[in-house]
């Protein structure tokens, strides 16, 4: 334990307590941070793809409103993740332009919670209440996968020491938990099969 040693040194070095110290270097990201961002881009892209399926398949206002919010949120976050990766000299996946194109089962890496090609096909084929039910169960599964990704990130030695990553992962966790709770409430309103 080095309890307080650095603080005492600081205090000793302080002249009028205004430190002339150079700025503390920004924390460099870990490989797990980069992998988290790249993976989450694909994860988010599938949510956008699912929302795009709403057109012509459901008119439930609360669901359309939920979809609009998910679409805006996840598109913005994809942009933010891409910016962060580029700023850190990394390759930034850009899946949004390909949404809606048939890329087979292997085009998009499968991150935790992502719907399989079969699940997506089932969603595409559904309409009305059946679509609402599949959309909500699918999106809850999808969001729970994001919580798993966050959990795995925080369980990795050296990860999330960069504030942007820590904060984004914490926000994803908090936001998607709240959204899961709202989706469960909506699911209770969908007529049973």
């Amino acid at each position, binding site marked *: 334990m080095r309890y307080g040693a*650095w603080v005492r040194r600081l205090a000793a070095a302080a002249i009028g307590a205004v430190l002339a110290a150079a700025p503390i*270097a920004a*924390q460099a990201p870990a490989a797990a941070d980069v992998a988290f961002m790249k993976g989450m881009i694909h994860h988010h892209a599938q949510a956008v793809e699912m929302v795009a399926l709403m057109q012509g398949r459901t008119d439930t206002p609360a669901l359309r409103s939920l979809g609009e919010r998910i679409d805006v949120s996840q598109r913005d976050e994809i942009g933010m993740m891409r910016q962060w990766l580029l700023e850190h000299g990394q390759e930034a996946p850009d899946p949004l332009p390909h949404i809606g194109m048939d890329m087979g089962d292997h085009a998009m890496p499968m991150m935790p919670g992502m719907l399989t090609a079969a699940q997506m096909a089932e969603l595409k084929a559904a309409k009305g209440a059946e679509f609402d039910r599949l959309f909500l169960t699918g999106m809850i599964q999808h969001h729970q996968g994001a919580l798993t990704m966050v959990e795995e990130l925080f369980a990795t030695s050296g990860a999330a*020491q960069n504030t942007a990553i820590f*904060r984004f992962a914490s926000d994803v966790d908090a936001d998607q938990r709240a959204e899961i709770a709202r989706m469960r409430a909506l699911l209770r309103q969908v007529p049973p099969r």
Partner: protein
Amino acid sequence: MPPMVPRRAVRATVVSVFALLLAGRAGAQGASTTDARAGLKAGWKDAASAIWNLRLVSTTWKPDAMLDAKNLGNFGFLNSDLAFAGKYVFQGNFNGYQIWDASDVANLKLKTLYPCPGGQGDMSTWGNLLFMSVEETRGRVDCAPGGVKDTVSAERFRGIRIFDISDVAHPKVITQVQTCRGSHTHTLVPDPKDKGAIYVYVQGTSVVRSPNELAGCSGNSPEADANSSRFRIEIIRVPLAHPAEAKVVNAPRIFADSAGHIAGLWKGGKHGEGTQETSVTDQCHDITVYPALGLAAGACSGNGIILDITDPANPKRIAEAMDPNFAYWHSANFSNDGSKVLFTDEWGGGAAPRCRASDKLTWGADAIFTLDGRALRHVGYYKLPVAQGNSENCVAHNGAIIPVPGRDIMAQAWYQGGISVFDFTDPAKPREIAYFDRGPISADTLHLGGSWSAYWHNGHIWSSEIARGLDVLELTPGRELSANEIAAAALVKFDVNNPQTQMRNVWPAHPAVARAYLDQLERDAGLGAARIAAIRSAIDGAEQASGAARRTAYQALAKSLAGDVSGASDTTRVKALTDVITQLAAQR
């Protein structure tokens, strides 16, 4: 048809009829794109700005140690929340904190710069103590940079750091109280029955650490573990005579229902396909306490809640609300009389541009409720009324009441949307009355910046600018707010101000208060114009006199005002005016 709402919420104390009606119409977007704030030139120190009914008194730029000059929006160096005591302003930063000597509001001086990374660095102060929130896993016991690589480490610190600032230039660590999720924000709660202690409510919102790092912590769901560190806040008791003995004394289950389910507000459960759900919304982001009322308003992820805090160590939930338009309940403010509560929705966590013309005015906004006993009723929304660009992070954020007597007015930060001052006296029709906004840091790339918090304190609005520094502003008189109203607001002074510990504004007997009411009566035609003119001249006459003559003049005016109450269309204000004149008449 309005959107569906969970039945549980309908059974709860909230009556969200207005919320539903508004939500049903929420397709209409409408932030102005022609306002002077739209499309301001980008820049860091040289961004263009727009201002209305405010004057920028000073801007103090960030010291180099709190800045990454190569990446102005670097999350590791964000300025965060503010606290005030005497001539000092305490400004948190994700990289430590700054103490400003604000003796001269036009020329702040950096008294102390204390590097200590760990975010968010929210500050509070009480006596000679300074409190700091630390939430990130990079936070270290020794305040050093470099983070903590291991997932379990004795070097990590997440929780509340407590400093002795009896020598403001040389803060000393007294103790550091570790908590399971760290401290995203915290709130000081005085105990009316025990002046010897102060409580700290700790709101943790991120990852729960391992029990191997801090004994007793559990990230499990409440269904799996009755000792889950989720679904609670932590309460630290600080004995003021021995602050080094500060420790967690309670972790109340403020989301529990009457049957004892820890996650009572949004229980998990079975539905469909035999799946067992675990509960998910498990945290409070921020709690504003109002000790004079014995109440707290908690902005808690999927809900707004009201707590009875008459026993600060054992808060009890007495009301809750949900809102289909809210993504993430973030913070709260009471009106001065406690009859209204304003909650903010930090949709997107503050890092996203959520004030674009395409973003709904009911999303990422303030929701205004009336509070009557245990009944929270949603009556209106307020959102920054002007569209911001794609490179401006913008959503509802921290603010505080401006103590204008007779009106509910608040100054609020909207990140790169700037500062908006609005009137919510009529909670169904809040409207903007002043603003200050800069252009984005960059025209094409979103660099995190803007106002983290905008608080009225002793006559000025103080705005913690995330990427730039600290702005001080003052209100300027106009149609929306008169010189008398501004003068009356400036009469309310507090030596210590921690904005999440809301204090009751009480106005002294002063002619500015009476004149402020008269200006309001003129504005809302609450009393006849000729009568208003006569009362004004009677006050002027009384003020020109002194001693017994002044008292006599005020006594005569008070007596005549008693006759105005019944005939006035705004009897509340006429009564308030009469009270002030009566107090002035009794003054020596």
